[in-house]
């Protein structure tokens, strides 16, 4: 059960509020790619792509794609004023040195203590970790955007992840169509509830306890 574009945009819009002036932000594929559409105009932010771009702009118009200017997912992008290119080693140097302020990514599961499992899809072959581990482990803030439940209606926010971890205790914030959770040292805190959902609906669809 995927989410409609309106709901996806609502999640992306809420994530965009986390971005402060001057930040360097890495965006994963899926809902995170919608985040730039919701940034206020006065926010100066540099979007980072791990294949070596700092300062990604919006997608090009059809017919204006440049085959040598693509994001880490291989899709054409543009660059903004102040952008730079670098090699993959420096690009990940930015991440490991703590210079990437935030990564916004999707996930299969997140545990109550912030464990992230987003790289091995059940039943699929192991595709490799790509750059996910470094981003999860070293970005200063990790925000997960995802459906609250999987296609079978099962909670994706769980007590312990059943899938192999990308990185342990790395998630700071979870935003779903139902609400916003903060991961703290003493567990999950539900911070916001999105209409039309109720506290009870969130509780029913969340696989672990949380504070409110």
């Amino acid at each position, binding site marked *: 059960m995927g989410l409609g574009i309106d709901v996806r945009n609502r999640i992306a819009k809420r994530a965009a509020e986390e971005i402060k002036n001057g930040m360097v932000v890495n965006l994963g594929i899926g809902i995170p790619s919608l985040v730039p559409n919701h940034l206020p105009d006065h926010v100066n932010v540099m979007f980072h792509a791990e294949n070596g771009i700092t300062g990604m702009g919006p997608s090009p118009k059809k017919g204006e794609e440049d085959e040598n200017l693509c994001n880490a997912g291989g899709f054409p992008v543009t660059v903004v004023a102040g952008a730079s*290119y670098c*090699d*993959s*080693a420096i690009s*990940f140097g930015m991440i*490991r040195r703590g210079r990437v302020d935030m990564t916004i990514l999707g996930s299969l599961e997140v545990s109550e203590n912030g464990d992230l499992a987003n790289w091995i899809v059940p039943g699929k072959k*192991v595709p*490799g970790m790509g750059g996910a581990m470094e981003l999860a482990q070293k970005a200063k803030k990790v925000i997960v955007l995802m459906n609250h439940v999987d296609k079978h209606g099962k909670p994706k926010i769980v007590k312990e992840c059943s899938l192999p971890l990308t990185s342990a205790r790395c998630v700071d914030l979870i935003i779903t169509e139902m609400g916003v959770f903060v991961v703290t040292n003493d567990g999950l805190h539900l911070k916001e509830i999105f209409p039309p959902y109720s506290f009870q609906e969130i509780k029913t669809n969340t696989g672990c306890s949380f504070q409110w």
Partner: protein
Amino acid sequence: MENSYNKIITIERAMENFQDGMTIIFGGFGGIGSPPTIIDGILDKEVKELTLIGNDTGFPHIGIGKIVSEGRAAKIIASHIGSNPVAGQLMTEGKLEVEFSPQGILAERIRAGGVGLGAILSDIGMDNEMVADGKQRVIVEGKEYLVETALKGDVSIIYAKKADPYGNLIYDKSARNTNPLVAMAGNITIAEVEEIVPLGSLEPHEITTPGVFVDYIVPSKGVNWTWAWE
């Protein structure tokens, strides 16, 4: 064009450097920045049992993926193979050995080989068996790290926008990606380039890869695949 350093060669001459069982390090990220003419040369020469080292396996018909899809590789060291289902299938069938390395650590391992270091110490994926299994651990100033060994190859194949006859290279936008690292890691480095310009016409400070690292320059016939987004 002047060929004062005898580095500019045909694709046919370049192919003399390839044989069965060798290790090839390739530049590129999802096929972008991978050298299409050299890749086709390798396919045409029908070399096999290759060990490939690079960011990923491209797509089935894009970049290094073409070589993988044809079953010419015995082993690949990469950060992911997700965009090439044929690679996954060959792995499952036991026909392709795959070693996964986190993307940025893979880049640093290739760079370490390129600059003559033995290894780097990394704290990425320490608790992940796919990353950490079988690797030495070293404690530095009270913190534990994995020993991530340097990677080198018999031949490096890379793709650049411009070269001068000395092999000084400038890359195009995000097609730079792993190329400057791969350029250093080969015992022999072959650069496929879109354009060869006269010696002295590149600004010395603009050059990304010094020609010191480049043995041969091959003019590109251009990308001959259709991109995934097209």
